[in-house]
């Protein structure tokens, strides 16, 4: 088991997920053990089909484990979901096209069980400013660029003040320049909010730049290959990617991925 110390925000014990269809069964994840401390930033890296997204969906209570246990904030994932402690950002912004940017951010406050402690809730307008979209509150999604839409999705995920933020390749469809900007902003938001972040990505530089630890998954069946620490001090400027330490970690990950 990979331990990161402290009482974990997310804990998986021998979690296995098997999808059964008429054509047979596929093991998406096998015997995954993981502990993520509160406030941690962990990236999930691995080839296609290694079960990165499935791991995220386990934590989000969108998929149930076939075997093993998943614990989120000390209880089952369902409790965390009903307590509104989970924020999810998809690869597509998944904005409701008939709602303005502000109304999209407000959606989590309008549906589902209400949070008991509402004192910590941030105002939607404030969150839009936090993601750099102050002044675009009334814009409809089709009037925004891809990067701006993804910012709205991040603000929406944060509005219910979740203690855990799950991000499934949120910047995968964006160009590199926009991606760099959003990476920097995400780190700023993470440090400002203290949210635990699980971040799925295909990009080695992105994983190393953002996270404290990178969980490398192997495919067929999806399983943990290694947990790599990114020993680079925060705050990290974009130029950290040119330091020898960064390059060392990145090339280690690249070598690892070739064996996955």
């Amino acid at each position, binding site marked *: 088991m990979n331990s990161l110390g402290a009482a974990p925000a997310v804990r998986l014990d021998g979690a296995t997920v098997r999808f059964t269809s008429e054509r047979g069964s596929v093991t998406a994840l096998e015997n995954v053990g993981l502990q993520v401390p509160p406030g941690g930033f962990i990236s999930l890296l691995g080839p296609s089909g290694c079960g990165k997204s499935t791991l995220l969906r386990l934590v*989000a*209570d*969108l998929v149930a484990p076939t075997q093993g246990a998943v614990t989120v904030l000390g209880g089952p994932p369902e409790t965390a*979901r*009903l307590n*509104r402690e*989970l*924020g*999810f950002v*998809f690869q*597509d*912004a*998944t*904005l*409701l*096209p*008939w709602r303005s940017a502000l109304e999209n951010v407000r*959606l*989590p406050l*309008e*549906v*589902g*069980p209400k949070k008991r402690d509402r004192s910590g809730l941030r105002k939607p307008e404030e969150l839009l400013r936090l993601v750099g979209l102050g002044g675009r509150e009334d*814009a*409809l*999604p*089709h*009037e*925004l*660029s891809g*990067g*701006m*839409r993804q910012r709205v999705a991040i603000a929406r995920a944060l509005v*219910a003040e979740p203690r855990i933020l799950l991000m499934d390749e949120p910047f995968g469809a964006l160009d590199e320049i*926009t991606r760099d900007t959003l990476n920097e902003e995400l780190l700023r938001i993470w440090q400002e909010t203290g949210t635990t972040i699980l971040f799925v990505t295909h990009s080695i530089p992105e994983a190393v730049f953002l996270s404290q630890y990178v969980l490398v998954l192997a495919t067929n069946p999806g399983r943990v290959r290694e947990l790599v620490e990114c020993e680079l001090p925060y705050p990290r400027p974009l130029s950290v990617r040119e330091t020898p330490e960064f390059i060392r970690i990145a090339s280690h990950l690249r070598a690892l991925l070739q064996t996955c």
Partner: protein
Amino acid sequence: MADKPTAVIAEPAAPLRERAPIVSKPPRARSQALLPFVAAAVLVAAWQILAQVFSLPIYIAPTPMQVARTLVSELPTLMRNFVPTALESLVGFVVGNTIAIVVAVVFVHSRRLEAALYPIAVFVNTIPILAKAPILVLIFGLGMTSKVVIAAFICFFPTLANMVRGLTSVNPQSLELMRVLSASKAEVFWKLRVPSSLPFLFSALKIASTTSVLGAIVGEWIGADLGLGALIIEATHNFRSPLLYATVFVSSAWAVVFFAVVSFAERRIVTWKQGEVS
């Protein structure tokens, strides 16, 4: 000499900000909107000239001028017959679409009922309206009720089919989002399914706006004392061609106005772009 590329470095006048492209209508769009009117004017003029050159008898093909004159002189008759047709098509439109929307909602909530009843709806829809109309007149009598029912019938199926599709064709990722937010079934319905279905609903309503007028007129053909359909039959039998053409013009104008009102409502309500944003 110029074997090296050159470039002029420009300073931005205002600070650059990430912005979505602003789409402005090309100036061509306005002149293109006039094209159908020009084409219509040319066709009407050609009709006037051909009818005069070949001096066609009025009962075969009246000239546009004769139709226009009739439109003015017979205005009281036309209006007296217009009111019931307009009423029948309007009430039929409201009734038919309301029932279709309610049935679609029921179908979406009960796959079993849909499996049982949808094929029957398809079957009834395959019966031509000209065959359905006499049956409905026999059941509902010669008054306005039978015409309203026929107009409602003709609206029903396209709206049902579109509404079922609209309510079920929700982006699966949006459903996952609602699940992470622990949204209730009712919240998913009102906040996600209903708005997603509106573009589909309006496509159906635009079809229904013109077919409901058709339904009312067909109903009046089967038997009615008053209404544009009755006037069409009467004018045809009496060889009053200018009146026939004028009646057709009034019924078309009503259908166009009806369609325009629904389109206007659509533009006011469906302000977002379908399918472009996931």
